């Protein structure tokens, strides 16, 4: 079994390294530092850590103020509370003035598990993606998370980074290169392409392998940068296949599936099947049981690729 790490875990470690490098890094949390993994930063750099209590709106507004005065704030809480509770603070105090705030949200998606629907952000990418000036990143493993965190710190302007609670297989090695606005082709095929991010990338790779056994060759694209979205790479990939499937741990409305549909419709129309939550909230349960129940599995992706190809008439 491959090595595993939760993206939130990698975030906590990346923060320590960033903090050493740059004295302007300030971390804020809202009484969840043990879960978001900012606690280690709090211990290492107590003078640059602010626990705001259970007050996400005030946390985002405070981060905006810190950014106006030269700090690079990373504001962390669960994705539901970051993008939901504090949405309008993010909109009007961070995105509109284009302030240098990094919203590092953990516990995204249904793999939150047992806490249930109130704690499972399934729409965060859609609402963050709708905001002008906002960059939206959904890394797939610990390695990519670390690079995404460093890239976010370097980027001038607001960034939303979506991370999870669940331990994920480590997919990438030290040679992997993440760049904001760039998608990565992980595997090349001729028949169909799966465009995935986050939790679904490892599952997409498994599905591609299973399809290869059946003689269907599939390209897998990791689209960690949902915004800006890499139109060029997707268009090039689309021109070489007959159908596309998207895979995200998020509602199919407004997230990666929508971003891909928009680009395909405008650049190179192809049959498309969007795998994700089908306009439904999650529920309590063990993470892998929920992925199964809501159709976020290798088997579902295999089926979706065949559906997409049959729409393409092959």
């Amino acid at each position, binding site marked *: 079994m491959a090595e595993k790490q939760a993206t939130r875990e990698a975030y906590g470690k990346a923060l320590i390294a960033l903090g050493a490098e740059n004295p302007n890094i300030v971390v804020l*949390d809202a*009484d*969840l*530092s*043990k*879960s978001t993994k900012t*606690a280690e930063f709090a211990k290492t750099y107590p003078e640059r850590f602010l*626990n*705001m*209590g*259970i*007050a996400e*709106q*005030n946390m985002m507004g405070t981060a905006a103020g810190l950014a106006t005065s030269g700090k690079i704030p990373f504001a962390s809480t669960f994705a*539901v*509370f970051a993008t*939901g*509770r504090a949405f309008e603070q993010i909109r009007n105090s961070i995105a509109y003035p284009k302030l240098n705030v990094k919203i590092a949200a953990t516990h995204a998606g249904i793999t939150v*598990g*047992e*806490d*249930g*629907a*109130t*704690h499972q952000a399934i729409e965060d990418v859609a609402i963050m993606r709708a905001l002008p000036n906002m960059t939206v990143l959904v890394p797939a493993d610990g390695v990519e998370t670390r690079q995404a965190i460093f890239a976010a710190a370097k980027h001038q302007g607001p960034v939303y980074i979506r991370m999870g609670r669940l331990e994920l297989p480590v997919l990438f090695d030290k040679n992997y290169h993440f760049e904001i606005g760039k998608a990565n082709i992980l595997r090349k095929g001729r028949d169909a392409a799966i465009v995935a991010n986050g939790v679904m990338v490892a599952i997409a790779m498994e599905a591609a392998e299973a399809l290869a056994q059946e003689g269907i060759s599939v390209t897998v694209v990791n689209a960690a940068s949902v915004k800006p979205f890499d139109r060029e790479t997707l268009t090039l990939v689309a021109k070489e296949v007959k159908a596309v499937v998207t895979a995200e741990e998020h509602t199919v409305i407004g997230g990666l599936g929508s971003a891909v549909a928009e680009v395909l419709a405008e650049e190179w129309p192809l049959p498309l099947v969007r795998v994700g939550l089908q306009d439904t909230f999650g*529920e*309590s*349960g*063990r993470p892998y*049981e*929920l992925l199964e*129940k809501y159709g976020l599995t290798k088997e579902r992706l295999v089926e979706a690729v065949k559906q997409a190809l049959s729409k393409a008439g092959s």
Partner: protein
Amino acid sequence: MNVIDLKRMANQIRQDIITMLVPAKSGHPGGSLSAADILTVLYFQEMRIRPDEPHWEERDRFVLSKGHAAPVLYAALAEKGYFPKEELLGLRQTGRMLQGHPDMKGIPGVDMSTGSLGQGFSAANGMALAGKMDGKDYRVYALLGDGELAEGQVWEAAMAAAHFKLDNLTAILDVNGLQIDGTTDEVMSSAPLPDKWRAFGWHVIELDGHDIEALLKGFDEAHRVKGRPTILIAKTVKGKGVSFMENAVGWHGNAPNAEQAEQALKALREEAVQLG
């Protein structure tokens, strides 16, 4: 119920909390145990409810604004007969009724879906306002956590409840002194509590949240207050009744394993025997 019966019930509810958290393998014992006496008095003495008619329009309402304490609510509802006690063992499991946080769509007796701190209190205001509009005499109760007080929405609701003279609303504040990252004083101090609530126009009663008689008296007093809402500021112990969980921040959101649960249940059973 008399005081001794209420004490027995609170003990039973504590046992239910521990029992249901074991198969769930996750969940929140600390803030459930701190509120066990409060919910016992509400559900077994204070509230006018019909377990066989959970949507009865004249019923008193309860909102668990600190929704993570769902186990104490589920235990009270099950003991009251809203649903079979066996359901408790399905807590937090895929496809089962009892969600990690209260879900009014699927769980009989849950008056409001909660889990995002601060929001339940506003909903309780809405229920109290609807009661006033319709000339109904039902009462509304909301339980808040002391960490939860950091949410701005709590104070928006507090201001509105006084503004609308919601004397049919009683808030209970579970002052166990702990949240997740530490004590409330370390993380985000809300002192001085009684002064803040008085300044917001509330009638304030300070009491011991584990003293059944004090709770009964406190709710009685709230009934008699006219023209403004009442808050019971209840001093409690997080994890109350399970020695190794008491005042221990680490037991906010971790379930006991079978061995720990047995140790806790043994002590609770002994306490029950002493109660007679």
